[in-house]
């Protein structure tokens, strides 16, 4: 199974047509896939809170948005999640590279990884963790759930899900 293609296919099938991204090595393939889809408008952000602002505007303009980012972004975006996305009750699928989990080669990444789920739980953000490739089968249901309940929803995807890094 090509995970990148499956994620992009599910986004399109759920009418998600506005995607903002902040780069990540693990997410490079899915970002490429989205960039190359005619039915998705891809706009890279310089910072994740900026991206959430873009998504809020796109949603109010009638598009279904999504953001792709690293879990370090949870540290950047807590205020935006609480006072924009949640306060105005807007849906936002967050496809998150869960750096610092199993098969992570960079020790510093672990420092935010240990806080990630606790922060998401504190924010009452529904959170899913993709560890095995087959976990992606749930992605379609998660998107439907997100746009049903109008909440930000986190999909944490770790290095094992992406097949590790090139040197492993």
């Amino acid at each position: 199974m090509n995970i990148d293609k499956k994620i992009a296919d599910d986004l399109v099938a759920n009418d998600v047509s506005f995607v903002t991204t902040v780069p990540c090595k693990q997410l490079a393939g899915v970002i490429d896939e989205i960039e190359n889809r005619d039915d998705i408008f891809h706009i890279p952000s310089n910072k994740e809170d900026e991206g959430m602002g873009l998504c809020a505007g796109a949603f109010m303009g009638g598009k279904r948005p999504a953001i792709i980012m690293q879990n370090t972004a949870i540290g950047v975006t807590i205020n935006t999640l609480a006072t924009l996305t949640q306060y105005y009750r807007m849906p936002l699928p967050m496809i998150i590279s869960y750096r610092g989990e199993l098969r992570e080669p960079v020790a510093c990444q672990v420092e935010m990884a240990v806080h990630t789920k606790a922060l998401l739980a504190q924010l009452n953000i529904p959170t899913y963790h993709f560890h095995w490739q087959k976990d992606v089968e749930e992605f379609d249901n998660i998107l439907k759930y997100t746009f049903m309940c109008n909440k930000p929803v986190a999909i944490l995807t770790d290095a094992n899900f992406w097949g590790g890094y090139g040197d492993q």
Partner: protein
Amino acid sequence: MIRSEILKEIAPILRDQLVVCNIGIPSQELHAIDDQPTNFYMLGTMGLASSIGLGLALAQPKTVIAIDGDGSVLTNLGTLPTIGNNAPSNYILMIIDNGSYGSTGDQPTYTGKKTDLAGMARAAGCDNVVVVQDVDTGKALQEAIDGGKATVMVVKCDSGNAKMPVITMDPVVIKHRFMEAVKA
């Protein structure tokens, strides 16, 4: 002129447009001067008016005016390259540049010193940047609307705030009312 005087003057122009208004006193002033369903008031999240406005302009064809402040743009400077590389023709960013953080007690920002937001916007790739003196705001805004191209306006004015009540409207109501106006 201070920001509230500018907003009063341009209210008849704003009335027919989709407006995303910056957090704090700017939204309170616009709400008190001329509340409209076409106004989206930010109640939190400093710095994202320009980004919300850009997302909205990209998602639908009506003209969008994002009313931002110098302090708020400084807090989200990454917005300028994103605007410079992506802004559609229906996007107007109007930065009320009074050289101070108005909502928090008029502490000075760097734009009142050496920093030039218009220059930064141009360097970020924004092709159509105009610097406007407060008294000329209405004329410049109308020109930007009629011009049909993405515009960044830097409106130079005095520091100061009008005393206006806080917005008590529920955020979900603000959003719903705005989304209905977008669709209308």
